[in-house]
């Protein structure tokens, strides 16, 4: 019988299969193997993890396609990669390579300071960052099939991811309780389509999976985000910038699955060594704040 590829169900469904899991940033084949062996549900192939991007400065771009291909060869779990915000061609290149998910990411230097990619015309699904409900629904309107908090990438500081997750869930609760006339106005205030807002009002949840990202550095951080309602967790610098990546990777996977089993989290947190060095958010100014790179 006839088949349909790239449908909304197929694209959003792919993200549903990642739920309760951990997606790990990897910079080479060896790290990808470590991530898979630790139980990651997917890997994000990139040249540098966010903390290194921060340290290096300059323009951060799509990864070398060779690296993506090498990673796809050695792991059987899905492989994701990042495109610069608004960089249609980088995204098309990643799609042509066969990556399983594209992250249109503020971690890379934006290529377009106004427009995001029209993600509807792609067969491959996209994940995008959001720090409030307005951003979340604008990204969905543009065709994102999965969301994640922006947090503040590469800081090892969970406070911004917590802020974004709490804000989005709080805004959803508020929208749920609104009357129709209030919804019309709220759509205007948030800068989102009324129909999408109405869907949130009726269902009380986002129509796509929403992961936590941007600052997860420990098993407890991952579990905290799950406790706050995240569907799963992205870990960028938190694993391969820690003392013992294998141990951190495994411990974060287990803490994400059993986020409400505190004895277990205590157990997996023992003798992990030093997590990545963190950054206090107030020390970041202007363009150092990656979360402010898109609206």
């Amino acid at each position, binding site marked *: *019988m*006839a*088949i*349909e*590829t*790239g*449908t909304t*169900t*197929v694209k959003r*469904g*792919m993200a*549903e*299969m*990642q*739920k*309760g*899991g951990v997606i790990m940033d990897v910079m080479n084949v060896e790290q990808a193997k470590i991530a*898979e062996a630790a*139980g*990651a*549900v*997917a890997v994000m192939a990139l040249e540098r993890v966010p903390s290194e991007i921060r340290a290096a400065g300059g323009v951060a771009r799509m990864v070398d396609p060779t690296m993506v291909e090498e990673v*796809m060869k050695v792991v*059987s*779990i*899905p492989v994701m990669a990042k495109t610069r915000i608004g960089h249609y061609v980088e995204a098309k290149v990643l*799609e042509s390579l*066969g*990556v*399983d*998910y594209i992250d249109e990411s503020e971690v890379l230097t934006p290529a377009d300071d106004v427009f995001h990619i029209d993600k509807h015309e792609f*067969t*491959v*699904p996209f994940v995008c960052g959001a720090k409030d409900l307005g951003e979340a629904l604008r990204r969905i309107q543009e065709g994102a099939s999965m969301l994640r908090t922006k947090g503040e990438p590469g800081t090892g500081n969970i406070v911004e991811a917590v802020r974004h997750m709490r804000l989005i869930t709080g805004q959803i609760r508020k929208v749920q309780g609104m009357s129709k006339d209030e919804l019309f106005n709220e759509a205007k205030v948030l800068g989102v389509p009324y129909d999408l807002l109405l869907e949130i009002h009726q269902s009380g949840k986002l129509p796509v999976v929403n992961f936590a990202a941007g600052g997860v550095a420990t098993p407890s951080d991952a579990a905290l985000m799950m406790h706050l309602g995240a569907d799963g967790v992205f870990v960028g610098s938190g694993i391969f910038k820690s003392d013992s990546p294998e141990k951190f990777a495994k411990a974060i*996977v*287990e803490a994400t*699955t*059993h986020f409400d*089993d505190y004895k277990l989290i205590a157990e997996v947190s023992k003798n992990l060594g030093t997590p990545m060095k963190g950054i206090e958010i107030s020390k970041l100014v202007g363009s150092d704040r990656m979360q402010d790179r898109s609206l």
Partner: protein
Amino acid sequence: MKIGVLALQGAVAEHMRSLERAGAEAVAVKRTDQLDELHGIVIPGGESTTIGKLMRKYGFMNAIRDFAAQGKPVFGTCAGLIVLADKIDGQEEAHLALMNMTVARNAFGRQRESFETELDVKGLDAPLRAVFIRAPLIKEVGDGVDVLSTHNGEIVTARQGHLLACSYHPELTDDYALHAYFLSMAKDVVGTN
């Protein structure tokens, strides 16, 4: 009828919703001691390597084998099908190895090749909307395994007594016919005991 959904990783909530629509009481299962009160269990879609690792870590391999040995039904979808198979193409080690079949992982290609289609399934009254996501397929079935549906000649649904497996995601649509079918398998078991 109480049906569990193994909740280590993957599409748990969707299966619970479909089971409830089919008339079951659905339970998210994270610990092996929860199995005792169940009449059946679903192993959901997700990443089979992740689910397999966590099942080993938390004692679910033996616990679900014991559960199945009591004649209680097990339903594996997508990754769950891989977990049930006794042979995985290109891999040394199987997971539960309960069903007499060989499966191939990511058999249709990568995510861009993922698709949905209509499927005729033996035992269901109407065609089923089937969503295939980086889906596996059943390359070969052995003795005692019934093929319930094929797509382009490839086996995508199979049943071996009280064990049911499909390579797609029946939980991602509003059609709960296959969940109702599984529920009737569980009712048959309760009826005969």
